[in-house]
């Protein structure tokens, strides 16, 4: 049981990630309904919950707006709801709790740590912000939502929900890249959607990992499992008493691996008092 307890956030995340995909799949293939309406129709690009609540990918919506096209209110409202949720809870909560590509890249990262541990070359982590800027700029220039047309995230959820065939090849590419070429290559260096949430929610995200500097013995175990180890800089942590960087995905892996229980989930305003298991 205690072994399972150590994996609690990972298990929660997998349940949420797979659960969201299952809701889409069940609604499409098995006709799942709620109050007589389809439970969750569409996919992660845009969807409707219970036939009432529109949801949409705010980054995709922004790209379409930049192509110079007006959008129907439904998708704008949907994008607003999703953006609002992640702005308040934590931008990259999307990445580790919802995005299906995380399933692939987490596995690749784990294998990299266990088997390989060598990067073929280094990539700056800021590269993703350049790619984000490029995605927005190209959408304006070529008049098509640039990232949506090449996105492996879209390829993966469409593949799973609609079964198109061949979409898995993009995922295989990502998997090999993350495992054998650059550790956390996609999510940690390239993905513009992660960069988008990371930038926007930097100042607003409320769910933050809290740090207790008195009990920390600087062993560094947290940084080994962290997909964004730069956010666990101990000097900054000691000052801020919590992980403030927008790049933190709130995956929660660092919390159970800490031998001194110096880390815990808590709210931004708590400032450093590790709450006794808020989740």
């Amino acid at each position, binding site marked *: 049981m205690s072994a399972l307890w150590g994996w609690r956030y990972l298990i929660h995340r997998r349940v949420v990630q797979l659960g969201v995909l299952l809701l889409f799949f069940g609604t499409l293939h098995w006709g799942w309904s709620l109050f007589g309406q389809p439970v969750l129709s569409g996919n992660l690009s845009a969807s409707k919950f219970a036939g009432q609540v529109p949801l949409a990918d705010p980054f995709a919506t922004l790209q379409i707006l930049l192509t*110079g096209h007006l959008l129907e209110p439904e998708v704008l409202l949907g994008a607003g709801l999703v953006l609002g949720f992640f702005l308040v809870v934590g931008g990259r909560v999307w990445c580790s709790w919802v995005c299906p590509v995380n399933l692939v890249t987490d596995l690749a990262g784990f294998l990299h740590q266990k088997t390989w541990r060598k990067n073929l070359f280094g990539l700056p982590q800021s590269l993703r912000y350049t790619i984000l800027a490029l995605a927005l700029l190209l959408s304006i220039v070529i008049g098509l939502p640039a990232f949506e047309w090449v996105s492996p995230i879209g390829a993966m959820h469409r593949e799973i929900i609609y079964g198109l065939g061949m979409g898995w090849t993009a995922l295989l590419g990502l998997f090999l890249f993350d495992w054998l070429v650059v550790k956390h290559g996609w999510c940690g260096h390239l993905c513009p959607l992660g960069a988008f949430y990371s930038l926007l929610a930097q100042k607003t995200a409320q769910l933050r990992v809290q740090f207790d500097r008195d009990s920390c013995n600087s062993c560094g175990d947290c940084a080994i499992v962290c997909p964004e180890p730069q956010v666990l800089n101990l000097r900054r942590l000691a000052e801020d008493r919590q992980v403030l960087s927008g790049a933190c995905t709130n995956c929660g892996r660092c919390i159970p691996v800490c031998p001194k229980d110096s880390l815990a989930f808590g709210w931004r305003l708590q400032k450093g008092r590790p709450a006794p298991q808020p989740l």
Partner: protein
Amino acid sequence: MSTRRGFIQKTIQGAALATSGGMLWSYLVIQNARAAPLALRPPGAVDDKDFSALCIKCGRCVESCPYDTLKLAAVADRAPLGTPYFEPRKIPCYLCHDIPCKNACPTGALAPELNDVMQSRMGLAFIDTEHCLSWQGLRCEICYRVCPLREKAITVEVQRRGRSKHAMFLPVVHSGACTGCGICEKACPTQVTAIRVMPAHLIQGKIGDHYRLGWMHTTPVSEGADVPDVLMGPPEQVPERGGAPGLDYLNQQDL
């Protein structure tokens, strides 16, 4: 190396990388978009370029289609990746009156203004007369009979058949009314369909402004003249059929 020099060098290198990466990226997207003109889109789809920009690839039109007509394009299909399209020879559009696909679209890629599905223009049917049974003089006209806009989108023209005293019943498509639903293409009994729906812009010609069809315009010569109505306007007003030789040959004297 001085810091200043290094900074300038890095900046130029970064800009070069972003430019070449951006060009490769746009090449990928534009290449993918080249399949767009080949696709038959759901009812109400806006123009190709606008559709490509507006479609968020959510698949809700596909999900709402009760006949499983619509599909999301996979790699190398006749439509850009992840966008909805249909192949009439497999499953045509059955023109639901409530247009559920259009209602499901959250972005306006399927225009919300479309209220009458019979006004949709998904494509245009055209007949390969060399391989059409009716045009060979056999009785078929299946396309005419299954057409949801029979007598408007497809009419049958009667004509004498040279090699026997029978009549030929020739199906003819009228672009003014054809929705491009493809029910005719699905029903065509030939081994490879002889009536086919394609995006209209791929097959339709245009006369151009440098020609004027005199009977469609009022000119100083025709002004005030009593031109019979039947010579003006769209085909459905053109003279009544039925008098063709051979049409009723069993009752004619030369049997």
